[in-house]
């Protein structure tokens, strides 16, 4: 069955939720891709999101994987265009106007008001993900370890994700 029209609809919607970062869309991405359309399982979603943190470029490229699993190459391309297209058009149209609104007093209010909400959305996405990713002492220690390392040292986050893979492999390998 051709999944592309549904993929296009779902990811165009998710695209517009990425206020302040891709993670803002994560709770609804989980509901739509896992619970509603069964394109993948929750652990798979967490895995590909996390692996995607090691890839260069925009950090939500994992959506290509969902599209590919649901609809092959066409599905992958569809999700890519659906997820990045709408916000690209919006940035193109609004970006210019927004710059000219520099003197408009509400511009600053909007920026200051959206900041805590977008951080809240990021945190909500983080909690959704932690429900599937943190289960016990080892995983908790890895997460806290990464947080503390980044707070303390100037270190490339992608390297810490690689380090997480090594620690995970050593801790969870059977026997």
């Amino acid at each position, binding site marked *: 069955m051709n999944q592309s029209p549904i993929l296009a609809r779902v990811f165009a919607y998710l695209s517009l939720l990425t206020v302040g970062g891709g993670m803002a869309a994560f709770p609804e991405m989980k509901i739509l891709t896992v619970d509603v359309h069964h394109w993948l399982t929750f652990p798979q979603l967490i895995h590909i999101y996390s692996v995607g943190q090691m890839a260069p470029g*925009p950090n939500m490229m994992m959506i290509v994987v969902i599209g590919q699993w649901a609809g092959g190459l066409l599905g992958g391309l569809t999700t890519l265009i659906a997820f990045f297209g709408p916000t690209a058009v919006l940035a193109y149209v609004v970006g210019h106007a927004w710059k000219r609104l520099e003197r408009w007093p509400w511009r600053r209010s909007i920026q200051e*008001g959206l900041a805590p909400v977008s951080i*809240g959305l990021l945190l909500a996405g*983080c909690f959704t993900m932690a429900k599937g990713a943190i289960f016990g002492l080892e995983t908790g220690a890895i997460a806290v370890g990464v947080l503390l390392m980044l707070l303390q040292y100037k270190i490339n986050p992608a390297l810490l994700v690689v380090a997480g893979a090594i620690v995970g492999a050593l801790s969870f390998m059977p026997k």
Partner: protein
Amino acid sequence: MTNAGTKDAIAPTQPVIPKTTVSVREIFLAFLAIGATSFGGVVPYLRDGLVTKRCWIDDKEFVEMLSISQSLPGLNATNMAILVGQKLHGRSGSFAGILGMCLPGAALMYVVGIFYHLHGDHTWTTAALKGVAAAAVGLILYTVVNLSQKALSHKFDFVFMAATVLTVNRLHWSVPRALLIVGALAILFHHPYRKPKTTAP
């Protein structure tokens, strides 16, 4: 103006880059390079590639464009590609920018998707993936801490932050609903006519 004898007069014009001379191809290649190498977050790579290396925009413009990128929906990486591309070469510049930015990561993740399907359930991969996922949670937490320190301007902002988390995670509000209701309240709270004690930028 370009007489052979006025060499000194030419020298100071070095930082002024005529904006119309940046071709669509150059924009595509610049963003392709950033899209292919920006491991661990695009912002420092964008700054290095666009401001430091190529002088296409200056630091002030970069910060301004970044703040617009953050206020609009969409990822910083792609919004910046659109805004910078637009400034340099209009519509085709934006298209070249976002295409270059997305191509390497998308191709890589496509391959990762195939490999995950083939090898995702091996014991060593599942073990490593558990570690990767936990590390990613730590990374997001860091972004939360980092942004809170930088972007929040009032103690009361933490209430809006908590309200957003609760409405999305506990009350299962959709993101648009949370944005509309909590966002509107937060914007009203920060209305421009409140006590003008925070006039410093």
